[in-house]
């Protein structure tokens, strides 16, 4: 006898939607450890409500999923990117360690946002528009792809710095570099202080995440602050998960599992050197990501795990255009639940 019918690991868009839908007929628990890639998203929902409130999740998104389709949701100008939503146009002056009397140049993709914010703080900052948002890269990015992308981005920044003046130059955040120190030193070769800007979280993403969590919480058991450490295998199925609760561990048994831990950035596929590693250590991973057959993950010995399904960015080939992440992930949830049923 299992503790629950379904355990959902991951509480981002894929996990929360899966939990909401499955809870209609089954006893579901969902883990909520860490920050999701959904919360990091800066995408805006053009056809949804501006505040991503719970009513929209309840009355618009869920019914559409239930009827097998979802309306088009386009992004504004950022969205969930392959590089993990780290390229933002708005930098946060509050968190930047810059003295007020310094003259600052900001390499920014926005249009004068920094100038206004800097002025509000009394910083004499000058924004310089520079295209440092990378062009789309292959589906299912690997760690090495991200590194190459970040290196190209750093080259773009170095080029743009030629026209920057002042004591301090703020550059966008750099993620995925194999040796960030080396790149920062090379940028500092210009003889001025170079700072990486700290970015604020995307409010649209946070609002969406909050609404999703509230929707899921009203329907299923939320295992707050817990991360799944290990999944126990029995034959071609899995039966239990060991969850970390503070310094204690809790074992929970289930009939089925939804794996929605996200991709490279969300922690579902962890980088190990230049390779990818599936965080629960049970399933097969190759250069393109987690191996899946008709929605079910494949064990390392080639057997297909019959009572687990994969949703969201952990699926290989999941493509996120600007603002397109939501519709893609939501549809993957629908397919995943069909596979489970």
């Amino acid at each position, binding site marked *: 006898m299992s503790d629950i019918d379904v355990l959902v690991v991951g509480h981002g868009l894929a996990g929360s939607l899966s939990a909401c839908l499955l809870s209609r007929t089954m006893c579901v628990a969902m883990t909520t450890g860490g920050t999701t*890639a959904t919360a990091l998203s800066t995408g805006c929902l053009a056809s949804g409500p501006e505040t991503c409130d719970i009513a929209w999740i309840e009355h618009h998104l869920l019914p559409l999923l239930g009827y097998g389709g979802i309306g088009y949701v386009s992004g504004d100008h950022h969205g969930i990117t392959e590089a993990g939503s780290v390229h933002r146009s708005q930098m946060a002056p509050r968190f930047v*360690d810059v003295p007020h009397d310094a003259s600052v140049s900001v390499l920014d993709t926005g249009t004068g946002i920094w100038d206004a914010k800097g002025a509000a703080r009394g910083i004499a900052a000058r924004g310089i528009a520079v295209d440092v948002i990378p062009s789309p890269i292959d589906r299912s990015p690997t760690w090495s792809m991200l590194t190459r992308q970040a290196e190209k981005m750093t080259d773009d920044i170095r080029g743009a710095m030629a026209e920057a003046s002042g004591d301090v130059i703020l550059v966008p955040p750099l993620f995925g570099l194999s040796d960030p120190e080396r790149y920062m030193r090379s940028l500092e070769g210009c003889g001025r*202080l170079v700072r990486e800007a700290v970015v604020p979280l995307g409010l649209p993403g946070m609002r969406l995440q909050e609404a999703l969590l509230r929707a899921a919480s009203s329907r299923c058991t939320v295992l707050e602050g817990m991360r799944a450490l290990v999944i126990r295998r029995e034959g071609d199925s899995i039966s239990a998960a060991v969850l970390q609760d503070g310094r204690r561990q809790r074992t929970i048994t289930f009939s089925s599992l939804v794996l929605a831990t996200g991709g490279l*950035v969300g922690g579902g596929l962890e980088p190990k050197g230049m390779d990818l590693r599936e965080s629960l250590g049970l399933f097969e991973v190759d250069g393109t990501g987690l191996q899946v057959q008709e929605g079910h993950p494949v064990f390392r010995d080639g057997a297909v795990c019959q009572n687990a399904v994969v949703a969201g960015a952990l699926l290989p080939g999941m493509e996120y255009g600007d603002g397109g992440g939501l519709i893609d992930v939501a549809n993957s949830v629908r397919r995943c639940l069909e596979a489970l049923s």
Partner: protein
Amino acid sequence: MIRNSCLKCGRCMEVCPALVHDPGFNGPRALAVDRSRRPWGSELDTWSCTSCGACVEACPVCQPLTDAMRLMRQDLQDTGHLRMLSNLEAHGRSVSRGQWSMVNMEGTHLYFPGCMVAERMPETIGGLVTLTSGFGGLRVPDGWVCCGSPPHRIGKVDVADELAQTNRALLQGTVYTSCPGCAERLGEDGVDTRHVLELIYDHIDELDIQDTSIRVALHHPCHMMRGMGREVLDKAYAIINAVPGTEVVHMRDRDRCCGGGGGVMSARPEVALRMARERVDQAVAAGAELLLAPCPFCVMNLRRADRLPTMGLLEWLTSIIA
């Protein structure tokens, strides 16, 4: 490692409770970015970190940020901590000698009082002895010293290790404590530690609890929910809900740190006080008539705000259980 895999997402800055109360504090993200980038003017200020663990919990790539902060502190010294270190050297307690005296405790359950409870709140121990007498009672090992949590959190790992060595021989089997900081540290040293609330929870039906008519808010100690596990917090709520007539109200930021940990009360008392005031204000706004905390460090700091009656959860229980 932290520098290479940080996403620069800023989530740790968003959840850090100290950042808004200390403009000079660089925040956890500075460990990945600013530290190695020749900080402007001065060294990184690490002393406002309460080691609450909110940043670790929020980090999308699970960076051990509080561990890194502790390592940063290893080579630094703050004058506010000298008194604590000298107390440890003089008599094995992180606080000065107070009112601790060994009460008659010959029960079956091993109990580790911890410095703050023993020296500042000894009446709680007396109450616990009475409260647990029906199900085995408590006994305190002779010769116990500080668990090592306060020196460990300010980076004095060698001092903490020495204290752990003394305690290890005394603490065999399951050990109950009333301080989540002690529980977390002793647990890291391999001691099977439980909060004494868990013992009470197991026997709650055997207790004769007085009817109360009061609205209470429960502060969530960081080292309880993130260190010991939320299971213990659930039990704390279950105990409060078992008290007839008690209404529980919830504060806006349920898991916000009060500022009492990480040596901040010693090194940056004004920051700790501002954090405590924020927390107490939230309890007042929620309509609480009494603020409870199952941690002696939290109680000490929250009381400094002096805006709402504040009690240790155990202290309150011993006052309403016949």
